[in-house]
């Protein structure tokens, strides 16, 4: 089984590498296979998740409703109802059923509103506040001079980087007022810091790509070694 996996993986890897020649059908076939397998798997998971889990929950909720009503059962039924209403959004292209698509706006609004609320609250409590506190945390003498310097540098660079996203000039009474020179210098420093950060991100992406390449080549080398060993007896 491992050999089959190695062979299939090696063939698909070579098909992807054929892009070095040109944009050919083999490369596209391999790409379509990868993307299709991922999407198909995701669709299968979603269908299974909805059909199996939620239907099972709904059936349990209905059974429970005959005896006693539980809050969790009501939320499950309500979720199923909202999910059914969301299906009406698929009738937008139909002439008659398209009018019913507005019904799908109810669960859609709920989803967007709840998602925005979760995202905003999470960004505030999980990103802005912790990062701000962490930035100021380093500016303390308790850890020594070197951590203090590092904390100050982190604070200054953070502020300077944020200054980049402010407008280069602002309008006052309809007249564009340029920033003072020192402010422009700080913004240039911030831009340089952003360039460094993006360079680090690019390096990380490149490193991940090279890791994938090395791992693929490693797998090919392993396969080739096994073939040679099998051929050598």
């Amino acid at each position: 089984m491992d050999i089959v996996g190695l062979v299939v993986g090696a063939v698909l890897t070579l098909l992807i590498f054929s892009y070095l020649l040109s944009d050919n059908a083999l490369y596209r076939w391999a790409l379509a296979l990868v993307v299709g397998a991922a999407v198909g798997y995701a669709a299968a998971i979603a269908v299974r998740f909805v059909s199996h889990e939620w239907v099972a929950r709904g059936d349990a909720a209905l059974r429970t409703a005959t005896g006693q009503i539980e809050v969790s059962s009501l939320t499950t039924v309500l979720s199923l109802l909202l999910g059914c209403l969301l299906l009406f959004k698929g009738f937008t292209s139909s002439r008659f059923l398209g009018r019913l698509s507005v019904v799908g706006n109810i669960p859609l609004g709920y989803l967007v509103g709840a998602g925005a609320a979760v995202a905003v609250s999470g960004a505030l409590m999980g990103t802005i506040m912790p990062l701000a506190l962490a930035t100021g945390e380093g500016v303390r003498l308790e850890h020594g001079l070197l951590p203090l310097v590092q904390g100050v540098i982190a604070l200054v660079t953070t502020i300077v980087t944020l200054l980049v996203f402010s407008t280069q000039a602002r309008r006052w009474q309809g007249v564009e007022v340029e920033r003072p020179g020192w402010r422009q210098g700080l913004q240039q420093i911030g831009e340089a810091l952003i360039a460094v950060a993006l360079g680090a991100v690019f390096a990380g992406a490149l490193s991940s790509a090279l890791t994938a390449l090395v791992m693929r080549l490693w797998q090919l080398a392993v396969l080739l070694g096994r073939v040679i060993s099998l051929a050598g007896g």
Partner: protein
Amino acid sequence: MIRCPSCGTFNHDSQRVCRSCGSALPQTRRRCPECGTLNPVGNLFCDRCNARLVEVEDIPSPPAPDNALNASGGVKGISLPTRSVSSEAEAPQSPELPAWLAGLVDEETEFGLLDPASDDAGSVAQEPGLAASVLPDWLSGDGGHTAAGGDAVDTPSLPDWLTGGADDPSSSRRDAADDDVALPDWLGGLPESDDAAQLTPPVAPEPHAPGDDGISPEGIADAEIISESELPDWLRQTSSVVPASGSDGAIERADEGLETVSAESTETIADDAMALPDWLQQIAAEEAGSEQVPDWLSALTVEKALPEPEADTGVFVPGTEGTGSTPIEADEGADWLSAPDVGAAAPPESGVERVVHVFEEGGELSPAELASAEAAHPAWLADLAPADTPASPQPEAKVFTGDAPVLGARVNAQTPALEAAPEATEEIPDWLEALDLVPPESTPVQELPAQPADLPQADLPEWLQELAPPGVLAATSGEPTSGASDVLEPAEIPEWVEALRPEARAAGAPPPGRAVLPTPPEPEGPLEGLAGVLPTMGLVDMPADGRPALSVGVPDPVVAQAQLWQRLLEQPRRAERSISYGRPSTQRGTSWLRWLIALLLFAGLFAAFWLVPQGLRLAQVSPTRIAPGVPALVESIERLGTGDTVVLAIEYSPAYADEMEQVAAPILAHLDSRGVESWVASSLPEGVGLGYALPSLPGTRPVGGDGYLAGGATGIATFLTQPDAAEVDQVLVLGSEPQRVTWWLEQNALRGTEAFPIGVGLSASAGPVLAPYLASGQVEGWVTGLPQALAYREIRGDGHEYGDADLREYGDADLREYGRILDLLMIAHWSVAALLLVAFFYNLFVKRGAR
């Protein structure tokens, strides 16, 4: 397209306001009220249904008449296509007019034909019919088709045919009045205004019924009568035919009872009567053929107690009533009655006959003769004048004599038209009767000679002779009359008339430079089916050569755009450009460079794989270079014990599976060594499957049903707030997508003090992005990429207490392979770094130098 006059933006034809500035766009279409078709603004009639687009009310009409002459009824508005009044009202005054036309206008203004100070002048210019009456026939294009009429007094310097007068002098206003109802609008509109009456082609000064010519006698008396020598012969003769006959007819009737008129005179009168209009001939025939007195005259005779005819040897001289005039005795004129043309046997002339004779022969009247002539008319005729009409003084009038004008002669001669006034009134159209004209009891009648053939040819230019109506020159082409021909001075043609001298061309041919416009049959009206009756008058009289008559100021940008469009439209279509379907050289170079890089990488990696000795480890991890998150993660996992639960959040895609498996392997081995249970969860549908591909841990199960957390951050928040989450002791997030990793961190932070300890294993690409989160203290520890994973192994295996366990789990061979993979990765990184440096210097020196 409509170009906005404000901003110059091109707009569609259907737009009414500019799409750029919102300004109102000039209207380019006019909707037909009948069929709704959109027509160009310049159209007067619909292109589809021929309905009128511009209402007659829209065309500014001449000012309302303010005198009795314009009070005539039955005048219809001009329905012919007219020019734009607003723009062309001042056309005669425009400096862009040709010099000859401007001079014509000036001359006409000077002569009172066009009064620039009055609005009527503008109306004349607006109405083509009126304008045509002002201009000569050949200029207005009427070709002499307009009706006869007019007043020589008002157009002293223009003959009838030049002023658009009739080529048929015999036609009278009576005929025009009778046909007024049936006339087309353009004809009916002629007497609409003062100027229309003034500009109407003059009628020969026939002494017919009062008011017949639409001119008050006072106006005639006050006007300066032009000398006959200034008129062409044909006109002079034409003018003399009708009135002379009429006058003589009156004389004949006046002297009929006295039988003092000689037979020759009677014969002359009879001959002249032949030139009378039909209606006058009918009247004359009735009176001459029968002794029956008209009713109106009979009534007058009874009322006024006519004296005996024998006692009244004179004729009625208007204007002399109340002056105690006495009839001229027949024997008083015996001397001049013996003139050769009268004959020796001619009876003695009365005073009026003497005047007539003097007119015929030339010469002057003595005061005694004038007095006798004034006294010649009977009192009963003097009483015929209306009582309410004051006796006007004797006007100074130029009298046409046979050869030369007799200036200063005071002649009061009543025309026979006065006697025939009742009959003539019956024939007058309504619109003329409505004028309420005063009977011309004191009208100074221009006594014309009875024999116009005797008039000399007054040096008429040939071109005028050619333009004269047929028959006129024939009448005047006789032998020069004896007597006063040497007295006549050559006719002086005004300079402006000379300027109008047309070029010789074929009859009926259009003027040079003018296009011949077809004249289709009239579609409706009394002229239905007749073609060529009405002159075609285009809205814009554009010369055939296309040269603009008026200089219109066009902005230079518009001209430039028009020229550009013209060039583009006239530009011949070029041959199709050859399209190269091959890749450009730059792409080929890129392809070769791609091949070169691939070969270098593959060769380097395989060389390292095959050539590097097994025991040599290129990738070494220095303890000083280990990130602080690695030992922190090791320590956090060390705090876990058997039976604790760890949630494995798989947040990476299959593309990063190889890398993330190498990152997760040491962590999972560590967890396995601690004997913890693991739950698998993921916000990615494929995440759970990738989680199961990891080295299996004892007791691993998915969160919930299958571990899929639908809804992204909401699903994660839902999972973290479930009651089942209370059993979780730690969360380990393995991810390559920074956004999904932050969801776990943020939603876990919402738990506040109950937040789970989180460890993170990241790919090399996600590490730099999530570095602030890692450094903020929200995570217990982290591992980023293969190097830190190797450091994790080093921490646990090399001289640490975890080393032996790892070796037992994965075996020595696996650990050695892992080291070699890292060696290859290091070589690949160095190779890529070298290529980046080469590309940097290549772009810095080679390409920049090439530019």
